[in-house]
């Protein structure tokens, strides 16, 4: 059954500051879509709008979950997560004084994820053997790369259909960025997820993205239908890569 996300004509901001201007984008079933842009262009704001953390001033955001289409605007964050949309937030937002396992178990708070908690925990540990080794360790005492794995694992524990990932590469060493991006691809295939990933590391994101959008000053500046189109676009080279 299909899972997809459609954002249309969204305007949003903080107080009198407008951040997003007339943003439209879509993520099709089982697609990985990259939202590309440098700092301060509105990627995180877009993610917040989808998750109900910020209410757009206009526009529509709808999600199709297991074939059922739903309007997301006006719903609380908890309701949206309950529907089956999970966000791996920027800065990871783990519970630093709880253990790795406690963080993962909390991920399954969503009512429909509670039944499958044992199976999901197993597949989490299988995907991230490192987390299993460290399951009794406090989350805050782990390295940045391990914390990012835990943040991904915690989101997966809610058994989502649509996964939003905000800047998975932030604060990680280049080798870890590459590993994290590879893991996202693996997870997406393993769990049949529909993925929207905001990222400023263009080259890494484009490696696993089916399509991508480039966001500049809160507007979609370019839509690339595949990695080649993104790589070879003049706008991307000028605005984004600074070439």
């Amino acid at each position: 059954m299909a899972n997809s996300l459609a954002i249309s004509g969204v305007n949003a901001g903080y107080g009198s500051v407008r951040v997003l201007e007339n943003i439209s984008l879509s993520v099709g079933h089982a697609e990985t879509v990259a939202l590309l842009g440098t700092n301060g262009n509105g990627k995180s704001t877009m993610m917040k709008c989808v998750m109900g953390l910020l209410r757009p001033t206009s526009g529509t955001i709808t999600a199709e979950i297991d074939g059922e289409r739903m309007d997301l605007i006006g719903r609380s964050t908890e309701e949206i997560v309950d529907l089956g949309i999970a966000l791996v937030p920027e800065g990871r937002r783990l519970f630093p004084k709880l253990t790795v396992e406690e963080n993962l178990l909390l991920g399954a708070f969503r009512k429909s994820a509670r039944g499958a908690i044992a199976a999901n925990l197993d597949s989490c540990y299988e995907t991230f053997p490192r987390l299993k080794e460290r399951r009794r360790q406090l989350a805050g005492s782990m390295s940045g790369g391990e914390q990012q794995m835990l943040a991904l694992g915690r989101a997966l524990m809610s058994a989502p259909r649509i996964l939003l990932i905000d800047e998975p590469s932030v604060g990680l060493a280049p080798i870890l960025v590459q590993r994290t991006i590879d893991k996202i691809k693996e997870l997406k295939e393993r769990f049949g997820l529909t993925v929207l990933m905001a990222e400023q590391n263009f080259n890494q994101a484009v490696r696993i993205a089916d399509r991508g959008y480039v966001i500049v000053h809160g507007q979609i500046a370019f839509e690339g239908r595949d990695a080649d189109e993104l790589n070879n676009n003049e706008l991307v080279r000028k605005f984004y890569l600074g070439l």
Partner: protein
Amino acid sequence: MISFDLLINAIVAGVLLGGFYAAVSVGITISFGMLDIANIAQPAFILLGSYAAYIFNSAFHIDPILVGVVMTPIFFMIGIAVYRLYYYCFEMRNEQAIQGLAFFFGLLFVAEVSLILVFGVDYRFVEAPYIGPSLHFGMFDLPLRMLIPCVISLAMIGALQLYLSRSFIGRAILAVSQDGGALQLIAANPTRIKEIAFGISIATCALAGTFLIIIQPVEPSIGRDYIGRIFAICVLGGMTSFPGMVGAAMLIGVAESITATFYGPSWAPAVAFGFLLAVLAVRPAGLAGR
């Protein structure tokens, strides 16, 4: 010369006292340690529990502990109501730091004065078959009025520990003060979680208050003696850990009991707080701080 018999009995009495201290401190470990709510009115709710036991015991001769058990869900609802008031008046506007403290301070005084108006300043007590007798094992002397509260207190804390570590809401309670916003991302409403946790912290006062009036006669201002003590136990135990809190309660109980036995009761609080300072100097996170 310190008598060995006296010392052993002082330690045993201290452990039993510590079990009771754990019951009065468990609520603060939840509200102050886990939720960051400095509920200094906690002793007022404990006294409310004492007086509830007194009312039903003196009027209908109902067993005080049974009254405590029956009052627990009612206290839970009172806790939820108090948290909602606190949330809408202060926490929602981010004014909890000073004004919230004043709110609980005021609540403490209003409760104390109300109790004086209704019951007067006389000492009140309850009657139950286990208040007089003691068990004797060789040189040990176990008064039932101390032993029974200690045992039930430890059982209550054990049950709460299981609830916090095994249930989804329990785990969310452990997480809520670390990052309430992140709880929303796992489909939990942080305000609802705090409300339940605060309800539980007040619910424990029903039994803790019952234990208090079983152990000693109660008058309205007696709650003040416990403000410092329960916060000290919570901090000494490491803020969020029940096993740490129980250990701290036992240590303070034993320290107070030994001091009271050998040097006189007036030194007991000084020794307990001196002990707290010494432990925090060596282990700033408390006995079991994470």
